[in-house]
């Protein structure tokens, strides 16, 4: 363990080597201080805020106390983890010195560095991997509760309030999980190495973006104990205005997560733009990098809007404002627009890294160049650009602006063109390659299958008259699970197995990865095909009970869900056992050509002995024809 003795002479305290503040702070002090501040703010709020008069139910005191208490939690947690040390020292004019920065980077700290505000991008990547796994576990448990309740028509296993709360929490937790599932672990760990850099542009912001996610989790998890969220993940007002204090947990979760995403976005974008290795021109930059940057760059304009929409929701709930209440001159349509202006780009934030990761793997497993790198970039850019122009296709049925239905239908259908480009890149790379069959390779095929179904069903939904039938039914739920989970999660799991050797030094157990793959893919397709059927037959979404005619389809879906559960548990088991005692991995187990495979396992603190100079792109596979 290192104690920092090289402190500036004017530092407060004695000259004897005492543990510096930054050495003492870790996740435990963060939780401790967070809980203390939450309690303090709660009691202060109760004491200082005027009591509700009996008849006034436009706003409630409880929301004010809960929101203020969660803000207290946030301040306490971020202080307790040490996020303020860097800015505070900078303000004082005594910025961190080299030793302190190395301490921050986790030098010589062993496993403790994972529990601290560590700036090394590799540590942050592993931290993201663990937290993403936890998020998916919680979201998955909630999914199993939902499907068990829907296993029989009359409902009644879960109370309606409980069921609605579980549905909404499952949704928002999974959305956050899928947003971070690739850019979090792999965007942080792998990306800087892949571009030939020693770390990210803003290492302290890197740690900040991670710990903000951890800070955000207790608010959403506490919502179950505060009455739950009754609204589904989209948190539409006015229903959200009516909701119990659990809704405030959702609001805080989103606000904190939005900050994390914006911070990560600024960090990743700057890193890629400014810190690529010498010689890595844009033409030689791997496609995974493009995917990662596009994803976070999309998030940068989208999430502030989400943040603000939730702030206004909090104000409506806690102070009696009426942004979203027509009785006070506001409008629920305002909320829907703000939400979907974020909500649509966000699904591409989820999808693009998954497709880009598989595009990065495809040449490795077909031993031939990526087909049409330029088309891949155009596809990613086209999707990103168009995605900010399509949001109101989620609002066709609201009656908000009937004249805009046509234009939004046009922009939405147009997105199928750049999406198709990505298909061509993938299928073109598989074509006439020498196929090396591994679980990531199989995932490429699974993505093509799932994304085809997800994409085509999306085309039906984009047609306004068809949407008059399909909107708000289980068909929509099946569609977005096919795209976000069938395509997105497939890419993430493949990324896990692909980059596992570099991140942990061990190979992911081959058999377990295959077993998990098949269980998940088969379970998934069974589950959500059943869901398409009941949607077409007229079952609405977010219902706790359904008419008898939907029994068969729902039982099929529930059965499929149980198979997914088994597959995910096998995947989890594989992750843990491989990490602890898997086969040691060679430096470049996949014989890939991107830069991360040129550094040894475990990856040294500063990645490269000598920064690489790049002279060609990473797709130089294949033999020249004679």
């Amino acid at each position, binding site marked *: 363990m290192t104690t920092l003795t090289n402190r500036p002479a004017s530092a407060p305290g004695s000259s004897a080597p005492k543990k510096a503040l930054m050495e003492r702070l870790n996740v435990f002090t963060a939780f401790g201080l967070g809980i203390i501040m939450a309690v303090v703010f709660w009691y202060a709020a109760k004491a200082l805020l005027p009591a509700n008069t009996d008849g006034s139910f436009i706003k409630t005191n409880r929301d004010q106390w809960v929101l203020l208490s969660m803000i207290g939690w946030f301040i306490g947690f971020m202080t307790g983890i040490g996020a303020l040390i860097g800015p505070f020292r900078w303000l004082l004019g005594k910025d961190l010195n080299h030793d302190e920065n190395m301490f921050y980077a986790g030098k010589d700290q062993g496993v403790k560095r994972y529990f601290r505000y560590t700036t090394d991008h590799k540590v942050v990547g592993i931290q993201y991997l663990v937290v993403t796994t936890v998020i998916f576990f919680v979201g998955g448990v909630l999914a199993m509760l939902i499907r068990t309740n829907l296993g029989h028509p009359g409902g009644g296993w879960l109370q309606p309030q409980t069921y609605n709360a579980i549905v909404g929490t499952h949704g928002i937790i999974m959305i956050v999980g899928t947003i971070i599932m690739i850019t979090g672990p792999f965007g942080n760990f792998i990306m800087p190495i892949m571009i030939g850099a020693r770390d990210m542009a803003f290492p302290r912001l890197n740690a900040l973006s991670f710990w903000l996610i951890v800070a955000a989790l207790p608010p959403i998890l506490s919502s179950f104990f505060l009455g739950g969220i009754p609204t589904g993940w989209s948190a539409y007002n006015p229903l959200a205005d009516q909701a119990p204090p659990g809704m405030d947990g959702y609001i805080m979760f989103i606000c904190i997560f939005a900050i994390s995403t914006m911070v990560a976005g600024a960090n990743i974008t700057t890193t890629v733009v400014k810190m690529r290795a010498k010689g890595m021109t844009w033409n030689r930059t791997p496609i995974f990098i493009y995917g990662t940057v596009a994803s976070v760059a999309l998030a940068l304009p989208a999430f502030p809007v989400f943040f603000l929409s939730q702030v206004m929701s909090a104000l409506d709930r806690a102070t009696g404002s009426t942004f979203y209440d027509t009785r006070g001159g506001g409008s629920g349509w305002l909320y829907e627009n703000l939400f979907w202006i974020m909500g649509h780009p966000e699904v591409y934030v989820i999808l693009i890294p998954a497709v880009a990761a598989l595009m990065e793997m495809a040449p490795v497993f077909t031993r031939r160049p990526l087909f049409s790198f330029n088309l891949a970039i155009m596809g990613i850019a086209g999707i990103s650009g168009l995605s900010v122009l399509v949001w109101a296709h989620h609002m066709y049925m609201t*009656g908000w602006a009937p004249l805009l239905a046509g234009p939004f239908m046009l922009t939405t259908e147009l997105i199928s063109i750049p999406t198709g480009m990505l298909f061509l890149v993938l299928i073109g790379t598989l074509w006439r390659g020498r196929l*090396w069959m591994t679980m990531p390779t199989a995932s490429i095929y699974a993505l093509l299958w799932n994304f085809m179904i997800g994409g085509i069903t999306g085309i039906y939904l984009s047609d306004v008259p068809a949407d008059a039938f399909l909107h708000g039914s289980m068909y929509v739920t099946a569609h977005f699970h096919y795209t976000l989970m069938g395509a997105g999660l497939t890419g993430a799991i493949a990324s896990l197995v692909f980059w596992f050797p570099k991140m942990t030094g061990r190979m992911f157990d081959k058999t377990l990865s295959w077993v998990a793959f098949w269980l998940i893919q088969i379970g998934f397709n069974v589950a959500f095909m059943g869901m398409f059927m009941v949607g077409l037959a*007229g079952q609405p979404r*977010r219902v706790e009970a359904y008419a008898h005619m939907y029994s068969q389809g729902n039982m099929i879906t529930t059965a499929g869900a149980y198979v997914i559960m088994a597959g995910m548990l096998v995947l989890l088991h594989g992750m843990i056992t491989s990490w602890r005692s898997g086969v040691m991995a060679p430096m470049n187990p996949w*014989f890939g050509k991107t830069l991360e495979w040129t550094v040894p396992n475990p990856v040294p603190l500063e990645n490269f002995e000598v920064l690489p100079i790049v002279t060609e792109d990473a797709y130089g596979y294949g033999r020249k024809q004679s």
Partner: protein
Amino acid sequence: MSEVETPKRPSILKSKDVRMTAILWVIFTAIIGFVASTVQVRAMGAPASETMATTIKMMRVFTWAASPVAGLVAAMAATTLLAKRHYGDTPPEDADHEIRSSAKASSTWLVVSAILCLFAVIWGMIVLQNDNAALLNAKAMNVNVTGQQWVWNFDYVDNGGARSQDLYLPVDRPVVFHVTSKDVLHSFWIVQMGIKIDANPGYVTETSVTPNKIGIYDLRCAELCGLYHAYMQKKVHVVSQADYDTWIQSQGGKA
């Protein structure tokens, strides 16, 4: 004339994998088109309005339009899988070529996908125009729909304002629904007629349909509205004009 000619490149169909893909393409397109359209159309059941019949037709047509694309992707994928696959911990040899792009393939793909996209847009616009025009039908009967947590009620404004929680409609008569909510968002969805419009507090929104089959259909709320959203449902009765007149009078209205 000179006998020196550049030898023609062998027909693209001479290569085995291209032939295989072409054959599979036809097979897969047929299977995908047939299965996807039939299963989906079957699941939607019998339509109770022209609107729904058009929607069912659209599903069928769009499925068939998309199936060659899906079929091609499936065929190419299957062809690659049918070739020799290498398993093991070391990679196979590099592929025989270094092809990085194909302007022909890319541009063909782009043009075809743009055409399909345009086709979908134009179709949708035409149907949308018709639906919008139906809203302006002066001869339609009007029903005010109010959604509230968690029941619908209906005001038959053209029949003397009779109020009921039951929805009865005369067959073959266009009806315009004026929908609003008393509290949170709901969504007024008559499943077999293929119409839906949200019920917003503070606004009135409209949708219209002409029921063309006598029978009993389902009205289901399609926007999560709180505790009993699942139960905010009702049967819709489409009856003959005579039966409708009898019923509306029993509700205190005028025929």
